[in-house]
């Protein structure tokens, strides 16, 4: 066939040492037989050896931790850091002080606008969530109660727990922002009946 003619050029080529042009051809396709590139073999063997070592270290070395142990340990560390840096969130007066700090209030406002706004409204007027400026505090009117509501959420009401996502600092800022939009005397009066 004509294909055989077309391909005849490489039959005359001088082959480097160790390279063989196999005799047999398939539909005119020929094959060289030559050594495998060294770097390629190193990659293959390297990966196999690495795998064996990895397996040994992971499953037969006492010091290796499972993924869950590792994440549990890290979470415990984080909990410790949080505790070390924690503030007294039962101190209502402190929250009121924060509500007068422009830094706290503006930081809280930013968090409010990115998260809380969807349920409590741009002007805290409520929606899916409660109105936060009507003087009525269903889950407690004390700043520490509000903090607790945000941090731990209220199960089965739609108020989700934001503690792990936002952390103490951002939640205190949000509480400060909410307080800044409310009248202290009204809230303290409400807290008498519903702390």
């Amino acid at each position, binding site marked *: 066939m004509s294909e055989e003619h*077309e*391909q005849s*050029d*490489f039959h005359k*080529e001088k082959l480097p040492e160790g390279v063989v*042009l*196999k005799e*047999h051809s*398939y*539909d*005119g*396709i*020929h*094959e*060289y*037989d*030559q*050594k*495998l*590139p060294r770097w*390629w*073999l190193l*990659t*293959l063997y390297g*990966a*196999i050896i*690495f*795998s*064996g070592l*990895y*397996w040994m270290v*992971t*499953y*037969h070395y006492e010091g290796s931790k*499972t*993924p*869950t142990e*590792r*994440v549990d340990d*890290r*979470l415990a560390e*984080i909990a410790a*850091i949080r505790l070390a*840096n924690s503030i007294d969130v039962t101190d209502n007066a402190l929250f009121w002080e924060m509500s007068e700090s422009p830094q706290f209030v503006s930081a809280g406002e930013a968090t409010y606008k*990115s998260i809380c706004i*969807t*349920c409590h409204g741009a002007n805290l007027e409520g929606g*899916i969530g409660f109105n936060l400026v009507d003087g009525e505090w269903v889950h407690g009117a004390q700043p520490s109660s509000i903090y607790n509501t945000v941090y731990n*959420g209220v*199960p089965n*009401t*739609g108020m*989700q727990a*934001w503690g*792990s*996502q*936002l*952390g103490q*600092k*951002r939640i205190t800022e949000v509480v400060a922002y909410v307080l800044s939009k409310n009248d202290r005397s009204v809230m303290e009066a409400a807290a008498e009946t519903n702390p």
Partner: protein
Amino acid sequence: MSGVKQQTIEYDDKSVRWFMVASVIWSLVGLGAGVLIASQLNFWRMNFDMPWLTFGRLRPLHTNAAIFAFVGNMMFAGIYYSTQRLCRCRTASNLLTWIHFWGWQFIIVCAAITLPLGYSRGKEYAELIWPINIMVAVIWLVFAANFFWTLAKRNEKSLYVAIWFYIATIVTVTMLYVVNHLSLPTSFLHSYPIFGGVQDALVQWWYGHNAVAFFLTTPILGIMYYFIPKAANRPVYSYRLSVIHFWSLVFIYIWAGPHHLLNTALPPWLQSLGMLFSLMLWAPSWGGMLNGLLTLRGAWDKLRTDPVIKFFAAGVTFYGMATFEGPLLSIKSVNALSHYTDWTIGHVHGGTLGWNGFMAAGMFYWLAPRLWNTKLYSQNMANMHFWLGMVGILLYVASMWVSGIMQGLMLNATAEGGTVLQYPVFLDTLQAIRPMMLTRVVGGGLYLIGFFMMAFNLYKTARAGEPVNGTVQVTSAMDELAGKDRNGFHTFVNAPIVYSFLILGGCFIMIFGSGASFLAGIFITAVFTLVAIAHFEVSGAKWSDWYDQLLKHGFGFTILTIIAAAIGGAIQIIPTVTVQRASNIEGHLQIPYTPLELAGRDIYVSEGCYNCHSQMIRTMVPEVMRYGDYSRLGESIYDHPFQWGSKRTGPDLAREGGKRSDDWHFYHMLNPRDISPGSNMPSYPWLFEKQADFKALPSKIDAMRMLGVPYDMNLSPEEIQAEYDAQAVDIVDRLAEKGAYTEPDKQIVALIAYLQKLGTYEDTTKKEEEKAAEEQSELFSALPAETKPVSAN
């Protein structure tokens, strides 16, 4: 036989033409769907508020069309064309060929109708419903029968490397497809997969990963081995490399599936196997790339002039890129960043657009002039297609890298000494990648335009020529040659195989063993490796003789391929499926769904929510901070199908239940932007109009019970309905209190019930403690007072 008879055989090239035309048409559908859904991610209005045009339903259409319709038909064209020539005989049966062709097109049409209508099994690339699954299996077996029959009739002594890859494709896809599609029908259009939870996850990704391996890679490698030497007129670079990379690829690929489930609740040993085998896969994959690219040595001058060589060279290069990126992404710590982000999407499109699409284009441009006996209508247009496609891919892949890495970094970023998330709002991370999502649309669009140009070019070429079928002269002497050496047990049971099995046996003892048996495993592996090397050094020549013998023995070759491809799956799946469910739940046991929740779950699956939402909180600190405690195996144990997901365009939903109020979900499903400004999620207004399919629930619950979900044995359809109504009315009342009005039979109610159920489980560790305490107290109370242990006082 005496005397040499000459005989002219005419190849069946008509079917090749038809498969090629089908592939070109479906490529436009598949790529077009891709560009549409990419636009939907950026412009939510492109979902048009119509059920059959939403992202969740069209994304499966895109993937199925691209994989099974475009690449499927392309593969069949290439296999039928090259196999006939490599076997020097006509395809065995015209009838089977045409059943194959029309059967496959019918399947594609069925898929294109059912997927937008929301009929889905809820597993990626395995969404098609069970009657279509059966058709696929039957048509695939028709193809297999036709192929192996052709091999049996061949007028060629031995099997060329392209044929090895075709054999691997046919047998392995059969195995993968059948196992992953085992389901229990509840009606003509609906079924539940027989595996649930982690078992389903493992089987799904064993299939999903190897659909890439054995549907998108091995057949195309076979096509590469035929068409590149043909187009370049050069010998294949190295036969030895073909042998090594074929067997290592077939053996190793199967094991790598669990790399789709890294850092999840999947047992760690499986995760490690997935990662390690992915790393080991790097070299075998690059073996294919080397053999493709180095075959072009001596023909590089054609790269400037011949669009076919351009497409092949670029296609193989993209293959090399994707198979380097794959092992990289399989490293657990890299995967912690990349998984669930666009990086994965970029990776897979580097493979599909670059490798599959370009190899297809190269093959079509080479085939068309030969199949229609003319010249290509326009070389310039083909070159233009190449550059458009190239720019398109680079834009696509680069934007997805940036997007994936950026979103991954943002999602995992912490602040204040690692104690809080830096970006607690998921939407912020979505807004950050918007420009990249737009670049992707542009890249994909350019690529699609290139394919339209190809379709036009091929059409004009076909119109200019006449269909022509290739012929070959064979002599009857070849029959004799072909018949010789084919029998013989020794061709496939001999030293290399025995050594391979002994070494593998040693490795398995090492994997599963601990202590003494682990050391014994290492010892056996090492000893037999050394013995094999020594034996090889002494009798090296014989081994290559042995392999030449095997190549004359199609049956033996096929059996060995099946074994090589089956081992990995067997080692991973059998222990997971046979292990008692109860001992594999990590202390959390899922509470079975109520009828209403089950109806809601079926809506979730049918709308394709899993395409954007995962239900798997990985064992990573930022995930736990964002979504809650990491997921345990037992929490999805009754999920048929599992819904762990593979991409988070939206947040994880594993612990969504109870987080938000019913009316939050109500308004959010009606228009997500009312609640989450800037969201790209489609609106689902029809859920508020359509009735949930509660009539099917008795048969669905029956099926679930058969699959091992502990529903009450004596639940009557009336009781199911009553339970459904009670829970639905409860939700409707709660919604009404908030001013959100709907009726109990609407789909939205069932969906809300399901969403609120997510993440609920029974804490079995507590239960066991209580049980133990109870037993103890019973024991003590039975004892006389004076003998009670002190601690009991």
